């Protein structure tokens, strides 16, 4: 474990990921190392096929690297099993997806409560969900279902869901990709506000240079390697 683990929320050392596609082995990450400080706002950019998604999945604990060290919020992740990874995702990572990924038949508040259901700590979950929805400005839409909400509102519900468990990091994968530019701007402002208000580390995967401009640092990937880091 690195000495400055208190200030670094993410420490990645020589991350490698190899996919086997039948006979062919594809190296998606070929030795990536970087740190992310607590409370930082980072953009990950790169053309398709650069290993961007693989890196995001690894950082979000959805997948394990083939080799290398990765520690998230002081916990070494590379050697954990599936259920332990699920626990880490639940407690330390908030996800915001391009396509929102809400449960379509459930109300906004039930959607926000979802991570709390899997955390085992059910006490006061309704209150915490209400709080999170208020934080994203949807205090008046709590019982609406996704199809009764606009795209921007749906993404806000997703953001409330991401912050409800007080995660160490929020992983946003093209959060504005499915929204028009005006709404996209609002969502970006809101994400940055959450970062300011709660001090949550924010990692945004994006194609959009105007989104990247608003972050403090950009990690660029090319062919599975860092491309002129920070």
């Amino acid at each position: 474990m690195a000495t400055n683990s208190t200030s670094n929320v993410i420490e990645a050392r020589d991350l490698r990921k190899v996919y086997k596609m039948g006979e062919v082995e594809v190296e998606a990450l070929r030795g990536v190392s970087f740190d992310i400080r607590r409370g930082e706002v980072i953009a990950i950019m790169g053309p398709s096929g650069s290993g961007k998604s693989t890196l995001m999945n690894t950082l979000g604990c959805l997948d394990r690297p083939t080799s290398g060290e990765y520690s998230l919020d002081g916990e070494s992740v590379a050697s954990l099993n599936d259920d332990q990874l699920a626990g880490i995702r639940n407690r330390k990572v908030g996800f915001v997806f391009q396509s929102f990924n809400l449960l379509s038949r459930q109300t906004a508040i039930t959607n926000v409560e979802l991570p709390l259901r899997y955390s085992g700590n059910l006490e006061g979950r309704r209150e915490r969900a209400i709080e999170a929805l208020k934080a994203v400005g949807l205090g008046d839409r709590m019982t609406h279902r996704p199809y009764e909400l606009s795209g921007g509102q749906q993404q806000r519900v997703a953001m409330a869901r991401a912050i409800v468990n007080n995660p160490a990091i929020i992983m946003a994968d093209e959060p504005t990709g499915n929204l028009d530019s005006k709404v996209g701007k609002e969502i970006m402002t809101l994400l940055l506000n959450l970062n300011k208000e709660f001090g949550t580390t924010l990692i945004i995967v994006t194609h959009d240079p105007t989104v990247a401009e608003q972050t403090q640092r950009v990690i660029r990937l090319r062919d599975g390697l860092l491309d002129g880091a920070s």
Partner: protein
Amino acid sequence: MSIGRAFLEALESLSGNKLRSGLTVLGIVIGVAAVIAMLAVGRGAEASITGSISGIGTNLLFVFRGNQDDSVRNPKPLTMSDAEALGDQFSAPSIEAVAPALQGDATVAFGGEQTAPQLFGVTPDYFQVRNVTLAEGELITEEHMLGRASVVLLGPEVAETLFGHPDGVTGETVRIEGQPFRVIGVLESKGGGAFGSEDNQVLVPFTTAQARLIRRSSSDRVDIIFVQAVSGDVVTQATEEISSILRTRHRTEVGADDFTVFSQQDLLTTFQSITGILTVFLGGIAGISLLVGGIGIMNIMLVSVTERTREIGLRKALGARRRDILIQFLTESSLLSLIGGVIGILFGWLISFGVGQIAAASGTAFTPVVGMDAVALATLFSAAVGLFFGIYPANRAASLEPVEALRYE
């Protein structure tokens, strides 16, 4: 996550696709209803057969000539003196009464009508031993026996055939094998019995039958001896006593009896095992339809898992463990089969009730019995079917990789 919460969520998810869930449930409903109804019909058949056997006569034993596997050559016929020996209070204390009888076929005619019922030549003890009562008229008496009287008791079916009505025929004269017999009474209807219909028979005095209707090589000979045990508890002792007396009289070797003692208990056991097999058979066939219903559940759950791959991916991304997903899908499949089970039990009960009504309307006293054990069995079995056929799809859902599942279109 609480069970109640899981059920509520599963219910919500199932109600999202009502037609599909409904059709899946229908498969289980049909299976469970069939099992319940078939078991009930089997039970009812058993109860009705048991009842009609009990109606033959209480504590009744039958003694026939010959044994069941025909291993003894030239079995000695049963005789009137055998019957008298069985009636001896000292050597056979468990025996209450003995009624020897001759049995044969005879043509009975009245006017232009004729029929061929079973003919029994009986002694006055017969009525007590066989538990026979009359609808009208009088019983055969010692005087009839002594006088070899040409009198006859008609079974209700015979009376119906000859006269067109089963009553008011006492005093008429019928012809048996061409000889005139005076009708002195009509038997009470008993329904079907172990030896064909008890209603389709005629009874004449033993001596009359011996002399004029059923000619046997030896004049002393009888075809069957009906024995009444003192009580139901001593039927076994009575059997022993009969065997020992007849062995001595017939001088048979050990293990080579030339007669057979058959008790009503044996009859009951035989019929109970037959109806038992029948019930298992019917239940088994119905069970197959329950199995088919289970496969329906599995099919629908597999479709559902595929459709909801993204949802599963999302849940996993948000921290759902393998177990959480497994429980979610198992709850859905068990809920399907449980709902099907409950509706199926109601339906099965209705069907049994309907069968009972139809049987009653067609004149057969037959009541299907829906036992609590059948209900418990059906409930357990349907829940097990839901779990069993849910495991594979649920496992498939739980094993999905979150990355892959999220990417699924």
